[in-house]
């Protein structure tokens, strides 16, 4: 099912949880809502589900207004961060819940309920735990039961709120791969909320990066990582070297001297230069954009991390150089960004 979110706005008191959010989710897509806490991602998810209502704007399911409808009528599967399993019901009954509460006319016969629950438990690989109770399961198992329960009502859209947030790192990695392959199998339109960029980039077809109630960028994992649309996205996703510079009449200035860099359309004024640590090349000091003194070289493996104190400012940057690059502590080196982005610096920061 296709979802359109149009100009959705939501205030909590004076706090703008969502400010004029627009998003189009294609049928069968797996979307990650990524952002720091307080960015509005969970609020957006709850609005799509029908657990919250926007102050303004529209949510369309296949072109039909969903806001007219109560959560129970929207046919959405919602998976909660802390699972929210019914603690007094067995795993089997948890999954069967959505089928048992249907109005009598629409209720399936018992045998069919049993068959469907069994199939779902097999899908999440928990058939052998059907008679257990939630408090006898591990975190990863509970999350899979929650997923099976949400899928039991054959939802048109699956919404997951920080689905792996409460799990330890190893289980989280396993489970997100499993979720990806499950999605490839059942192809239900899905949105999940996360603050973990690795998770979003690994699992999602497209990533929606949010900050302070606004969408900063929508794109494939590759797009948001390699061509960040805003300073926030550059800083939030992946590692960034940030060097404060100034832009005047199409020139980029650093510590009073001109850099041979393209301002990329940034207006005159203060700006920040963003470079990925591995996109900063060490070059002879004479013809470099920046110079600096190597303070420390460390790291094992293919790349080495070098801390360099810039000569022209107090900034210390950490870059990655290939092993055996001949860089040593105390040396003065030149730095040249291979790829970079320049964004105007916000006034307050």
């Amino acid at each position, binding site marked *: 099912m296709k979802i359109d979110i149009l100009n959705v706005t939501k205030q909590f008191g004076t706090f703008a949880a969502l400010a004029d959010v627009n998003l189009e989710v294609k049928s069968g897509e797996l979307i990650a809502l990524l952002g720091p806490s307080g960015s509005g991602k969970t609020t957006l998810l709850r609005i799509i589900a029908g657990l919250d209502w926007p102050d303004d704007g529209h949510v369309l399911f296949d072109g039909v207004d969903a806001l007219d409808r109560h959560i*129970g009528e929207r046919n959405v599967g*919602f998976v909660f961060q802390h699972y929210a399993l*019914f603690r007094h019901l067995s795993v089997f009954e948890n999954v069967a*819940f959505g089928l048992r509460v249907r109005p009598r006319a629409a209720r399936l016969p018992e045998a069919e309920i049993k068959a469907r629950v069994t199939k779902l438990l097999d899908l999440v690989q928990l058939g052998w735990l059907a008679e257990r109770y939630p408090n006898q399961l591990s975190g990863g198992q509970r999350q899979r039961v929650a997923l099976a329960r949400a899928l039991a009502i054959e939802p048109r859209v699956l919404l997951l709120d920080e689905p792996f947030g409460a799990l330890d790192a190893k289980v989280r990695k396993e489970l997100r791969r499993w979720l990806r392959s499950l999605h490839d199998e059942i192809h239900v339109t899905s949105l999940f909320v996360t603050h973990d960029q690795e998770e979003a980039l690994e699992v999602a077809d497209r990533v929606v990066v949010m900050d302070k109630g606004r969408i900063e960028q929508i794109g494939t994992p590759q797009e948001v990582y390699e061509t960040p649309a805003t300073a926030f996205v550059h800083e939030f996703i992946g590692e960034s070297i940030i060097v404060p510079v100034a832009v005047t009449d199409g020139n980029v200035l650093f510590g009073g001297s001109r850099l041979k860099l393209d301002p990329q359309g940034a207006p005159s004024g203060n700006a920040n230069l963003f470079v990925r640590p591995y996109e900063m090349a060490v070059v002879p000091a004479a013809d470099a954009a920046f110079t600096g003194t190597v303070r420390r070289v460390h790291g094992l493996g293919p790349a080495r991390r070098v801390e360099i104190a810039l000569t022209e400012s107090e900034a210390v940057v950490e870059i990655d150089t290939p092993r055996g690059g001949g860089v040593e502590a105390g040396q003065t080196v030149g730095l040249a960004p291979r790829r970079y982005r320049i964004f105007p610096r916000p006034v307050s920061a």
Partner: protein
Amino acid sequence: MAGAAPTLAARKAAVIAARQAVRSEPKVVRFVIIGIALLFLAVFLVLPLITVFSQALVRGIGPYFDALTTADTLAAIELTLTVAVISVVLNTLFGLVAAWAITKFEFPGKSLLITLIDLPFSVSPVICGLVFVLLFGSQGFLGPWLQAHDIKILFALPAIVLATVLVTFPFVARELIPLMQEQGTQEEEAAISLGASGLQTFFRVTLPNIKWALLYGVLLCNARAMGEFGAVSVVSGHIRGETNTMPLHIEILYNEYQFMASFAVASLLALLALVTLIAKVTLEHLVQETSR
């Protein structure tokens, strides 16, 4: 070989003894502390209980039952049961609604409501009774109007029920609020998202999660409703055979030097207390078992 074993066991025992000595108080201190606790229990709980039952049965089992089956006593028992049933039902509903409102919704004045629920605990029961006298009495706020319409509240069943409800109001709500706060609203949200209606959510998700706490609250509420003296005493009017509850009846019998009859009725209340206690312990056991 044969000689080695005892020495080993002896050494083990010595080590264990040494460990225990480090870990606990000297024996004398332990005995004194436990002794004081038991003495307290004996003087303040066991002795009075024994007195009640021995005084009640002082003339044998026949007169005991005769005392319990006089018309006035039976009327008092009936009134007490009626009042308890009504109060418990009302307070269970009130408690559920209040706890639900407080824990599942955000609204202004919430903390004030929580404080108000506790009020009957901190106010003397006599005041709770007096409130109704001031409200419904002939000199009271609504008194003249009630008299004009021939509605009898004070010195009748309605006032006794009202006073009891007021005094026992906190029991159910107090048991439910912390539990429901801890459980949050996620399970309810999950149920609704799966298509359950409001009532289905309540009966299939909320109620099973709070049933033990609810039962526990009902139990305490019932015990207090049957035993309430102060508030009821103020509003009842002490009309024998009509508006005397068991506690009031006990006092009247005692004041009339009918000690045996007085203790006989008291023994019923004491029995109720024991039953409540046993039920409470059983409940706690069950809760522990199911929450494991």
